[in-house]
């Protein structure tokens, strides 16, 4: 058998590397940049609130500083008990960050599992799994959550776990349709003829290399969805309870003072929610278009 030895540097790979700016349109770059900004401030807020540094105590009540408008000292102003709204917003990330990740990981892991099994071994498992998933899908999400709140304590972790479970059918039907198409493709047969094992074909070629984009997009959309659900539940008073700060219950508390001219109490948390969700959606959208661009180039 011949052996080939090359000591040369790999230069031409770099020469033909297409920079991001050429691969993606301005719109994609802007939306991904915005999305990354959102993700980075979420991560920073979460670390700050976990380590309890750099910010004023979000629980500290100071009656003498009620309803202060935004200033240098209180970046987003203070609320009706004199608590700093900025530090409450920072602290509010704790309410959905870990539960949201829990929900995403439940939905993607089980969605992936069911999707692969029912897509690749469609003959044996497809009908059974999708019968089961359709049952889950047919229960309205908000009623499911209300039921859980009634039966158990309104713990945000439990609620988010059930949100994750209720979005399994969506993810797995995406993955199933992807696997269904891909497993018939010639390149899977070609890989088989090169001696690849079934597991490496499934996990490497079908899931990782080809369905990665679907998974990432589902994960970002799932995170924004969990934020929406958490905030809306807290707004309704079922989710995170006062005095633990959450973006939803801050809006709910502030709405009483809106028509007294103290609009920052509810508007600022609402704006933060809006910007965050928009950023996550745009991130998913931009990533989607970049992945498709790369393949069809």
């Amino acid at each position, binding site marked *: 058998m011949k052996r080939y030895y090359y*000591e040369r540097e790999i230069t031409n790979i770099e020469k033909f590397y297409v920079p991001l700016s050429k691969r993606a349109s301005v719109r994609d770059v802007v939306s991904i940049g915005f999305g990354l900004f959102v993700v980075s401030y979420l991560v920073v807020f979460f670390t700050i609130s976990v380590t309890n540094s750099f910010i004023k105590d979000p629980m500290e009540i100071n009656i003498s500083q009620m309803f202060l408008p935004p200033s240098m000292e209180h970046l987003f102003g203070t609320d009706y008990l004199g608590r700093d709204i900025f530090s409450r917003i920072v602290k509010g990330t704790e309410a959905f960050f870990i539960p949201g990740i829990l929900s995403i990981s439940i939905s993607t892991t089980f969605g992936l599992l069911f999707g692969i099994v029912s897509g690749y071994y469609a003959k044996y498992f497809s009908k059974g799994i999708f019968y089961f998933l359709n049952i889950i899908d047919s229960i309205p999400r908000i009623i499911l959550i209300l039921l859980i709140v009634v039966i158990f304590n309104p713990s945000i972790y439990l609620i988010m776990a059930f949100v994750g479970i209720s979005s399994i059918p969506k993810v797995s039907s995406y993955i199933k349709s992807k696997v269904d198409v891909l497993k018939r493709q010639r*390149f899977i*047969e070609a890989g088989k003829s090169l*001696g690849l094992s079934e597991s490496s074909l499934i996990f490497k070629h079908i899931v990782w290399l080809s369905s990665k984009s679907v998974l990432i997009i589902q994960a970002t959309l799932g995170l924004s969805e969990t934020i929406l659900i958490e905030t809306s539940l807290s707004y309704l008073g079922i989710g995170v309870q006062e005095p633990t700060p959450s973006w939803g219950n801050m809006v709910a508390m502030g709405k009483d003072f809106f028509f007294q001219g103290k609009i920052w109490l509810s508007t600022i948390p609402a704006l933060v929610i809006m910007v965050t969700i928009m950023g996550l959606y745009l991130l998913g959208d931009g990533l989607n278009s970049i992945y498709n661009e790369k393949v069809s180039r």
Partner: protein
Amino acid sequence: MLAELNELKVYFYDQRNKRFIRSVENVSLGIREGTILGVVGESGCGKTVTALSMMGLVESEPGIIGGTFFFRPDDDDADELEDTILRGLCTKKNYRRERMYNLFCGLDDYIEFEQSPFTIIKDSEKWLRRTNRVMELIRGKYISMIFQSPAQSLNPYISVGQQLQRTIQRFHGEMNKYEVHGYAEELLRSVRLRRPDVVMASFPSALSIGMAQRVVIAVALCSDPCLLIADEPTTGLDTTNIHRIIKLLEELQMERNLALIFISHNIRIVSAIATDILVMYAGIVVERGTRAEVTKTRRGPRHPYTEMLVSSVPGDADIKRGKRLREIPGSMPNNKKEMDACPFLERCPYAKGSLRRKCRSACPEPVEVSPMHFIRCYRFYS
């Protein structure tokens, strides 16, 4: 002999109509190192199924019904292969002949069938699952395959260079990444791609079909296989590219001393490259011989089907003379019935009078008209 396929039988089960469909019946072929075997026949005559069953890629149950496939691996890997065969298939009989190993061994433990009426008592699905472990050692490493549609044989989601390098890393684990990259470039140069760096950086959708075919050939050659099966590598290519790909395959075969099985439905293309030709019709081999015997001689004995195949493709002289091409009348016989007559009977111009009666009685056995030249036709029975 590098590989020897004996009495291959492949039947598929038609779920809807509850009957068996004959795909390939009693196909035998042998191939030596450094030779090119051309397999020719119209579509649906079992060329691709033969190739796929040699790779163990026949999926639908029951699939392979009978036969033996002897293959000679390198001495280094023979022990491992023997071990896997003994462990995986738990059979001690009929797995070895000198240095050749039977990759279809243990098949008769998992399958039982009656010839007439054709019924299967045990099916081969379990065997197909078990034999996968044996075939994983063989596939890619010793036998590589090029498929019909080159553009679809490449994963559209990763770049060509990455696919090639991953495959190289799979078979040459000891190489570092510079060596792998160099080897990949070397391979792309050896399939006559002029700018390997550009090709490696691009995605499969950016390649033309000829380029994609060359890349597929390069991927198939990564592991230095001994046997390359090219399953209609020229479909979808334009005429100049067909010529180039055939030249390329011929040159690569000379350079690497490959054994090549070249499958096509065009007998001119096959006769341009092959040293031996196998003509298949309705799942059986109707003629087997060297290229000269099968295609060139005008007066020598040939099967009527081969004769008609040759006359249905224009040669240079025919085009100059403005000769009308002859088509083969009729269509393939029903492969759901048992073969109780010569399958070519209805389309055969020679089957007249007393010969026709003979043709209708049973399917003819192959006759050796000259050394190593077999024809299945009653005309040459002496």
